[in-house]
C-alpha cells in the first residue's frame, strides 16, 4: 500500500518538476504568420547563438493565431502579415492587452506559376477573374490550352487576407480552388504542376516556380518599397505594450543592420537601406 502512495506522489512530483522546467526554459515565445516564420527562425538562430542561455520558441499557425496567442498571453510576440483588426483590438482591451505593432520588414505578394507556363504577367483584373473561376483556361490569358488550377491559401493565413485585399476586393474565391495550409506547400504544388497558379510572399519564391509580373511591373525590393509594385505590404510583430527586456532586445536586433541583413537574405525587403 505504501509503495502505491509513494509511486503516486513520485509521479505527481515528476509532472510538476518537468512542467516547471518547461516554463523556465522558454523565456520567449513567438507565434503566428507563416510568412514571417522564416525571418524569425533565421533571426532567433543567430540571436540565440550570440546570447547564450536565451531560449526562444517559435511556432507558425497563421497571423490570426499569432494575434490570438498574444491576446491569450500564450505568446510574447505575435507575428502577423496583416494589420491587427478592430475586433481583435477590442478583444485585447477586454483581456487587458495593449497590442503594439512593430514593422520588421516589407513583403511583396507575388503570383507564381510553373516555370513551364508561357504566361509572363497578368493584370490585377485577370488575376481576380481567374480566382473567381471566371477565366478557367490558360489560353484566355495568352498561355497554352490548359485548364487553370487555382491554388489559394486557407482563410487563417495573413497571405490569404492580403490577397483578398489586393486582388479579390471582396469577390469570392471559386470553391473549386485548392486550399493549402502553408506557403511551403504552395511552392511545392506549383513547382510540380504546370496547370497551377498561386501566390506567396517574396521570400518563398525560388527556382522551382516562376514569378509573374503584375500590371507589367516585376516585383523587386525597389518596386515593392516604392509601391510601384501593386501588391506590397508590411510585416509585423505585435507585443503587449511597449516591449521590455528580452522581447525589446530581440525586436531591436531584428531592426538592426544585422537583423535586416537576415530579412534580405530570406528574400524579403528590409525596412532600411
Amino acid at each position: 500500500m505504501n509503495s502505491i502512495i509513494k509511486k503516486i506522489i513520485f509521479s505527481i512530483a515528476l509532472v510538476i518538476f518537468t512542467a516547471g522546467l518547461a516554463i523556465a526554459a522558454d523565456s520567449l515565445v513567438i507565434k503566428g504568420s507563416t510568412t514571417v516564420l522564416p525571418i524569425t527562425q533565421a533571426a532567433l538562430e543567430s540571436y540565440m547563438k550570440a546570447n547564450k542561455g536565451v531560449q526562444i520558441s517559435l511556432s507558425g499557425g497563421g497571423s490570426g493565431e499569432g494575434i490570438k496567442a498574444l491576446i491569450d498571453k500564450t505568446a510574447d510576440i505575435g507575428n502577423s502579415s496583416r494589420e491587427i483588426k478592430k475586433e481583435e483590438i477590442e478583444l485585447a482591451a477586454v483581456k487587458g492587452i495593449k497590442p503594439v505593432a512593430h514593422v520588421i520588414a516589407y513583403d511583396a505578394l507575388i503570383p507564381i506559376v510553373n516555370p513551364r507556363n508561357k504566361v509572363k504577367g497578368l493584370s490585377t483584373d485577370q488575376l481576380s477573374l481567374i480566382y473567381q473561376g471566371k477565366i478557367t483556361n490558360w489560353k484566355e490569358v495568352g498561355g497554352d490550352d490548359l485548364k487553370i488550377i487555382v491554388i489559394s491559401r486557407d482563410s487563417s493565413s495573413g497571405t490569404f487576407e492580403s490577397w483578398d485585399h489586393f486582388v479579390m476586393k471582396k469577390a469570392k474565391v471559386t470553391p473549386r480552388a485548392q486550399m493549402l495550409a502553408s506557403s511551403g506547400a504552395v511552392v511545392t504544388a506549383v513547382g510540380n504542376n504546370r496547370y497551377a497558379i498561386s501566390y506567396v510572399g517574396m521570400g518563398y519564391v525560388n527556382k522551382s516556380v516562376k514569378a509573374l509580373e503584375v500590371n507589367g511591373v516585376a516585383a523587386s525590393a525597389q518596386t515593392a518599397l516604392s509601391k510601384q509594385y501593386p501588391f506590397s505590404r508590411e510585416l509585423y510583430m505585435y507585443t503587449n505594450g511597449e516591449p521590455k527586456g528580452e522581447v525589446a532586445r530581440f525586436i531591436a536586433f531584428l531592426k538592426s543592420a544585422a537583423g535586416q541583413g537576415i530579412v534580405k537574405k530570406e528574400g524579403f525587403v528590409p525596412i532600411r537601406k
Partner: protein
Amino acid sequence: MSRHTKEKLIKYVLFLFALVSVLVLGLIVFSLFREGLPIFKKVSLYDFIFGLEWYPTSDPPLFGIFPLIVGSVVVTLISSLMAVPLGVLSAIYIAEIAPASVKEILKSIIELLAGIPSVVLGFFGMVVIAPWLQNTFDLPTGLNIINASVILAVMAIPTISSISEDALYAVPREFKEASYALGATKFETITRVIIPSALSGISTAVILGMSRAIGETMVVLMVAGGSAAIPESLFDSVRPMPASIAAEMGEAPYRGLHYQALFATGIVLFSLTLIFNLIADYVSEKYRQSGSATL
C-alpha cells in the same frame, strides 16, 4: 490494514480512474455542443448541412457544409474499397495460412505501419504520390480524392487487419477440426467455416477502420487539395470536414460565427464516428458467438 479493506480500496481507486475517462469524454462532448450549437440560431440546420456554399470569411458569410460532408464520405468510401480487401485478406493469411516465421514478420510489419505518424504519410502523399499521379495520368492536379484515399487506406489497413486477425483466432478449434474431419479442403474450411464464424469481428474491424479514416485530419489537410466544392470526378480536390476545421480554426475569431460553425462541423463529424461505433457495437453484440456449440 486488513486484506479486505485493501481489496476494497483498490477497487475504488480503479473505479475512480475509469470514471476519469468517462468524465473527460463527457466534458469534451459538452463543450463541443456548447460552442457549436449557437450557430443554429443564425443558420438553420437544413441550410448548414445541405448548403452548397462554404464562405465562412466573406461578407455576409455562408455556412453550407454539404461539400465538406461529401468530401469526407467520398474519401472514406474509396479508401475502404482499398483497405477492406487488403486488411481482411492479409489477416486471413496471417491467421490461417502463413507459417510461424512469416507470420511474425508480417505482423510486426503491419504494426510498424500503424506506427507511422500521419504527417509523414501526408508528406509522402504530397511530394511523391501527387507528382507521380499527375505525370502518369496527365491530370491537372495530384492533390485529389484518389491520393487522399490511398493514404487513408494505408492508415486503415493495420486497424482492420489486426482486429480481423483477433476475430479469426477466436474461432474455436473444434470448428476447424470438424470441417477437416468431414473432408473439407483448407480453402473450403476458411471460406465456409472460419470466415462466417468470425464475420461479426471482421465487420467490427471494417467499421472501426472506416471511422479511423473519416476522422483523420493531417493526411486530408495535406493531400486532398482542399476545394470546398462537390467533386465531379475522382481526380478532383475535396475538403473533408477535419481538414476544414484544422485549417480554419486558427483564424476564426473566438466565439464568432465562423468559430461556432467549425464546432458545429465537429458535432457532425462526431455524430458520424459515433454512428459508426454504434453500428460496430451492435454488429458484434448481435452476431456474437456464444460458446463453441453455436454457429
